[in-house]
């Protein structure tokens, strides 16, 4: 079984879908609708939303490491402007906003 080809590349700016999902899913509510940058492509994994209901979890979903600015997540963030949060998000929850990261704020 060949692995699905990733639709996104490292550096792509993406938004996490804000849909309501019934049942089990691995996309935290606090990240839905938020914008971040792809910083890693983690491989393809069986779809947890199907696995949870005894389905084979196919097709496999590409998993991405997405980096968010903390100040984009929380309006009253009490830390520093250069603080970040990273989470692993499956491809079917992501939409591309633009193909280039904002170089000022998301540098590793």
């Amino acid at each position: 079984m060949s692995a699905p080809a990733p639709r996104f590349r490292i550096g792509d700016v993406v938004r996490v879908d804000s849909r309501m999902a019934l049942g089990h899913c691995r996309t935290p509510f606090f990240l839905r609708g938020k914008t971040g940058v792809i910083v890693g492509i983690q491989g393809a994994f069986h779809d947890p939303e199907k696995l949870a209901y005894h389905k084979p979890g196919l097709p496999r979903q590409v998993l991405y490491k997405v980096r968010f600015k903390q100040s984009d997540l929380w309006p009253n963030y009490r830390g520093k402007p250069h603080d970040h949060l990273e989470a692993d998000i499956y491809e079917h929850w992501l939409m591309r906003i633009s193909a280039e990261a904002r170089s000022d704020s998301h540098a590793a």
Partner: protein
Amino acid sequence: MPHDDHDHHHEHSHEHGGQPYRHPFQRDHDADPASPYEVLEQAIRELLIEKGILTSEEIYAQVDLMDSRSPALGAKVVARAWVDPAFKDRLLANTRAALAELGIDIGSLADFRVVENTADVHNVIVCTLCSCYPKMLLGIPPAWYKSLAYRSRVVVDPRGVLREFGLELPDHVEVRVHDSTADLRYFVLPRRPEGTEGWSEEQLASIVTRDCMIGTAVPVEPATSAAAE
């Protein structure tokens, strides 16, 4: 062997709150009566055995495997990475293979990633959705790691939570929270403290605590560490 081949009698034990246990097992504690989740776990475990999906022996073997894991294992990995830059590179590039070099099998359930603390970045691990944790390297997680308070607060106010752990980070350091949302388990490679030049791997491992690998602590400088003797 399949459960049906057992020739033991299905005697019912009634010593714990009158609940019948068809298969002997060790309770971790003597809470009585059992919580609803305990009863549910017992029922599912009994069914898995009855249907021949798992054997009691397999369940015990898995419990033994988990009990064999502790933060000492992770500390050994960190110490090796500190003294062997080539190993550190391999650990960051392919964690599973590098751990296998040290005889550590992380199993097939989840893959591992290492995040490295630097002079500019401090990493901290959480699982906001449940309690994902690098158990195969660090053993059973501390209760606070699974608490709603830690899981919700460390993403909103990481610097405040770290301060409560006694860790005050300089303003210029980026705090990077890693939410273990999916199939990967994270652990932190802390920075080697100044003043540990010439230490053996065993000495170095002794200052790497569990919390250092979660990211809620950093290894203590040798001046205040018992390992500095």
